[in-house]
């Protein structure tokens, strides 16, 4: 097979690992691909490079292609999320000042109970909170809205503003923001620098949130189905490799290199292991399924996930939720995923939609081989999203 070089954009984050591993560990090469991984300085830049053809695929925030399909933001080129790259992986952090006030009220930073953390935070910040997120269309924003709506935080003023992750610690120290929701390694970096403390993992709000997707232009996906299939299989195998316990040390070492994330491997390892140092004083907390690349059909692009994102965005921007959900569902390409994964041994679920938030425990569901286990996917407030209500 002749090797084809494929330009792919990514943001230097721990959850870009499947792309980096696909290239570094030879999964791309085995499919006859060489990934030309282009590090981007911002999410708008990733989106533009993809939309205008500088790259053919990208590591992208899951709500971005959905927002584009809804005509939001400047660029509205049709995009396809061909697989989910990672599930969960965000952290919510607070300034040292808020940390001290929370401790004064007896909050123990258990890094698990979203309801208790929301109530405690609302109590110590009656004047309101400015919360930094990486991008206006992101799972970070969606998780914050879910969290605020179902806790006493709904009674204080919440101002969500965009701050580039590398500047998050600085913005926290300068008082421009009081808290943040960000992907790793940036939460741990702010703890290391003494700027903040981690309050919750994203998974405490929604236990199975599609965080990043592998996105391509829809026209490219249609004209290059073979190339796309090779890319998807390489990335899927990289995710499977990442999910093996024995891979963790090597993965952390690889990602920490200067050419990729350029942070100490010990810091990368926190996200991969789910053992996070939550405060500058060194307390460690375990977050189960903190960041998932493979288990529980993590990379399957459920149409119901896209519908949930579309409905959430629509309600905030004044669009018709039914129309938004319908359009969003066309963005997550479970059809292309099924086509590409045939013959890889990937166990494909029987359905392409599910009730989001209905699994309180890992549950076996119907699949190609009949034994696919889906992981716990509940929202902390017990809500269940039905993608096809009667």
């Amino acid at each position: 097979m002749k090797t084809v070089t494929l330009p792919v954009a990514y943001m230097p984050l721990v959850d870009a690992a499947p792309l980096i591993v696909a290239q570094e560990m030879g999964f791309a090469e085995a499919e006859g691909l060489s990934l030309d991984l282009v590090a981007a300085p911002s999410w708008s830049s990733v989106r533009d490079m993809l939309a205008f053809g500088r790259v053919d695929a990208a590591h992208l925030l899951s709500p971005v292609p959905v927002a584009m399909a809804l005509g939001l933001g400047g660029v509205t080129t049709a995009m396809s999320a061909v697989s989910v790259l990672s599930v969960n992986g965000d952290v919510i952090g607070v300034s040292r000042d808020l940390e001290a006030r929370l401790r004064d009220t007896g909050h123990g930073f258990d890094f698990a109970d979203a309801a208790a953390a929301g109530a405690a935070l609302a109590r110590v910040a009656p004047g309101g909170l400015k919360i930094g997120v990486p991008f206006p269309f992101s799972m970070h924003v969606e998780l914050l809205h879910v969290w605020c709506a179902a806790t006493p935080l709904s009674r204080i003023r919440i101002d969500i503003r965009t701050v580039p992750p590398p500047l998050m610690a600085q913005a926290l120290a300068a008082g421009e923001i009081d808290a943040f929701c960000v992907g790793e390694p940036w939460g741990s970096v702010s703890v290391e620098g003494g700027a903040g403390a981690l309050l919750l993992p994203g998974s405490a709000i929604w236990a199975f949130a599609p965080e990043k997707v592998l996105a391509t232009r829809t026209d490219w996906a249609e004209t290059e189905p073979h190339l796309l299939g090779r890319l998807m299989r390489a990335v899927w195998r990289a995710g499977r490799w990442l999910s093996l316990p024995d891979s963790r040390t090597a993965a952390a070492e690889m990602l920490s290199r200067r050419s990729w994330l350029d942070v100490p491997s010990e810091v990368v390892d926190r996200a991969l292991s789910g053992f996070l140092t939550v405060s500058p004083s060194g307390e460690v907390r375990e977050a189960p399924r903190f960041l998932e690349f493979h288990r529980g059909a993590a990379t399957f692009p459920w149409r119901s996930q896209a519908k949930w994102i579309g409905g959430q965005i629509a309600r905030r921007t004044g669009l018709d939720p039914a129309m938004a959900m319908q359009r969003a569902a066309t963005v997550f390409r479970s059809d292309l995923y099924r086509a590409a994964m045939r013959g890889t041994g990937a166990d494909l679920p029987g359905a392409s939609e599910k009730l989001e938030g209905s699994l309180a425990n890992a549950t076996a569901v119907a699949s190609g081989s009949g034994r696919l286990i889906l992981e716990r996917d509940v929202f902390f407030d017990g809500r269940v999203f039905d993608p096809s209500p009667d």
Partner: protein
Amino acid sequence: MPTPLSIVVVEEDRDRAIAIVDALKDSGDYDVHVIGNVTGLARKIAAFLPDIVLIDIDNPTRDMLEELTLASGPLDRPVAMFVSGAAGGLARAAVEAGVSAYVVDGLQPERLKPVLDTAIARFQMMRQMRTELDETRRALEERKVIDRAKGLLMKAKGIDEDEAYAILRKAAMDQGRKVVDVAQALVTAAGLLR
């Protein structure tokens, strides 16, 4: 005579900002403001109510501008990225040159074109200069490291410069690494052993 376009240039490097402003002023009658400190960027931009915002694609604070593209942003008028409303070729050229322009919706594309053309030309020139500067600097750094490694070898083994370089080159070839990487390893190791 329409009112001059109001342009905000987001650029932290003072010299580059001046170069862009000069180029824009030469190409037409524009009302140009520079924002050099990105703290509270959205608020500062809102204060100028510009028609266009020019920002380097490599600037990570670009994501802050995305907030302006939402109707609920700090501007009371909707803002769209220029590239959505104009000819695709120009948009692509802008992206490749490393310029992104954010433009208030409803502005005629013909009034934008000269601004964008100027910005693209200027950004391309600066990008080229920056790349050349980086390369020169790197070459200089590499030569310094290799010189130090040669010096260490010459002293340790009592050989001359050409022989020292030959040893470095052979080690690099044997290990499939660059000469400068081998030299760096030697310098680091020597530092540890000292």
